């Protein structure tokens, strides 16, 4: 549905995108994860037709975003990270204005307005002035606005930023509903936990490049190096000696009390490693696997991406 190949963008001499390759299949909720300044917003703005790439290509539904901007605009709904509202319009008028800007008028526009307000649970606010809505309501209204022309693809740039937990849950429910309706959705975020139970796919971007991409569980599994913590009674030296010699072990952190390391192989290796440590004289009092969150995975990948 969406594919970018070697996307490059410069801001002056700063290279914001360094050959970004990304593939989003149809019907996916694609979590676009990266730190601030990694290039998420730039990528989304290129896809929305607001920026021209300096190199590479991006296509949505088979249309190149540079050569077919009009078609792409009809296919894409875009919600920027920061946006404003017209303070002198009512909620219903606001949606009708954008409907007309997409060429939708008359009865159809009025029906769409009512349906969308229902979807984002703002049906009772139709006559309210837009600037009297809360931040969460404005976010939902903006989402309704981006849906007004029934786009196949939604580009949401940090849709949950500035929302309280309840509003976040509401936003998440709406997005799941949209996914059921068959929309392809890209959500960018630096708050990873909000994406963990929502996305089907994930793309991790660091310094203008995708470092890992694919189905959520696959990415997590691939990146999931089993991390362990070992504590010993007395000296850690014998345990450390074993660890350093063991293939597939990467020591992450060593303090006076404990060693944290990752192991690339399965549980059988872990058991063998523990046995070896004990037989080498280490007084192991704690040997446990740590739970790795999406954040940890991302940090790990970001570190790998930075070194690469």
């Amino acid at each position, binding site marked *: 549905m969406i594919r970018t190949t*070697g996307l*490059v963008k410069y801001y002056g001499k700063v290279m914001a995108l360094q050959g970004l390759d990304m593939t989003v299949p149809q019907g996916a909720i694609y979590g676009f994860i990266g730190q601030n300044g990694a290039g998420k917003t730039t990528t989304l*703005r290129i896809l*929305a*037709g*607001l*920026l*021209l*790439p*300096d*190199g*590479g*290509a991006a296509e949505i539904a088979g*249309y*190149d975003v*540079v*050569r*077919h*901007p*009009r*078609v792409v*605009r*009809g296919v*894409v709904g*875009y919600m*920027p990270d*920061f*946006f*404003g*509202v*017209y*303070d*002198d*319009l009512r909620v219903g*008028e606001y949606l*009708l*204005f*954008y409907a*007309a*800007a*997409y*060429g939708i008028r008359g009865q159809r526009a009025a029906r769409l307005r009512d349906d969308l307000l229902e979807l984002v649970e703002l049906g009772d606010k139709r006559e309210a002035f837009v600037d009297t809505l809360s931040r969460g309501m404005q976010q939902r209204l*903006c989402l309704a*606005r981006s849906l007004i*022309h029934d786009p196949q693809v939604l580009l949401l740039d940090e849709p949950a930023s500035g929302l309280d937990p309840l509003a976040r849950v509401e936003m998440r429910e709406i997005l799941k509903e949209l996914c059921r309706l068959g929309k392809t959705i890209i959500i960018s975020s630096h708050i990873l936990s909000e994406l963990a139970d929502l996305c089907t796919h994930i793309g991790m971007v660091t310094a203008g490049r995708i470092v890992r991409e694919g189905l959520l569980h696959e990415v997590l599994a691939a990146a999931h190096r089993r991390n362990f913590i070992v504590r010993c009674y007395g000296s850690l030296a014998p345990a450390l000696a074993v660890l350093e010699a063991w293939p597939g072990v990467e020591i992450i952190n060593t303090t006076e009390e404990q060693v944290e390391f990752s192991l690339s192989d399965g549980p059988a290796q872990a058991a063998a490693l523990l046995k070896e440590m004990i037989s080498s004289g280490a007084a192991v009092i704690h040997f446990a696997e740590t739970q790795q969150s999406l954040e940890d995975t991302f940090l790990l990948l970001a570190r790998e991406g930075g070194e690469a």
Partner: protein
Amino acid sequence: MSRERDRADHTAGPPGPAGSGQTTRGDRREWLKAFLWNQWEGLRNGLVPMLGKEMRGRTRGLRSPLLLSFFLGLMSAGTVAFLWLMTDRTSQIMPQVGLNLYSLLVLGMILLLAFIAPAIAAGAISGERERRTYDLLLVTRASLTGIVLGKWLASVAYLLFLVLAALPVLAVVFLFGGVPLANMGMALVVALTTGLGYGALGLALSAILRRSQAATIVSLVLVFMLVFGSLVVAGVVSAGRQPAGDMPVPAGEPWQSVPGPPWYVYLSPLVALSPALPGMENEGLSMSGRIPLVGTLLNEILRQFRTGPEAGTYVYGYAYGPGYPGVYPGAPGRAGLPSWARFALCQGILVVISLVVSVLVIAPRKPWSVWLVSRRARARGQGGIPL
């Protein structure tokens, strides 16, 4: 509007050797049709909602009634003050009071419009940026031309509303008589052209400067320079080289011909007013007797230019009064254009330049870079040249 039609996206370029390799006349006609249709759709998608929204927004809140009150208040106060000054102690009204009042009102109205128009338009595009609604607008299917035209027409519509509201104040002069309806119509045309041109200027500055405050200040300064500065410069430039203008000017003798007013005086609506004020057709803009302060100043500046209708006055070898036989010896038609028409022409050019600049400035994808990127993409598609 069908998706099929959209597929013939004009940015992809017409079908030609770079495309399929085989081009028929029918293909090109189809492409042209789709192109024109897309342009029309974009224009409509921008113009109609933007015009509606802007007019709705402008008429809401306190700003609009306050501005209207300010405008009408100033004009009414001017009328009352003038009548009070011109009526002597015996409460007799001199015969020329009506004409003088009319001159003052028209001048006042046009000066007010000249400064209100850019002030209204100066927030139009920068306001979208400041409110962060700009991107939301650009991702729609509205064309930039439609958006800019909608913004401009909305501010113009508001000016039209101001002019209409001022008509009752202007109608006071009919109590005194002496003002032909045609002249008043001409004055209204000049007033509207002033608003159209300076409004477009304000819009362009709003797009360029990105901040409403800066755009407002700069546009007011620029309008001040156009209204008064152009006349002052013209006066200073020509003062040194032109003899006093009341002598008969021999026609057909190029070495004696006087230079005409430079083109830039027609940027000022004050020059355009000279034929719109009755009784000046044969005198140029001599308002010294009517509006003491402004008239004297203007008279001093414009004395040398006498921008009344010129045609025909120099046929018999000598031109008396406001003729400029040597001005455009090769182009009698152009020489015959009355000054309000020249002003309208200048404003028209100002509008076109301002609107084109606005569209180019707000374009997120400048046409030339789209062309470059498109060309590179096409080259890569054909020859595998890496970007």
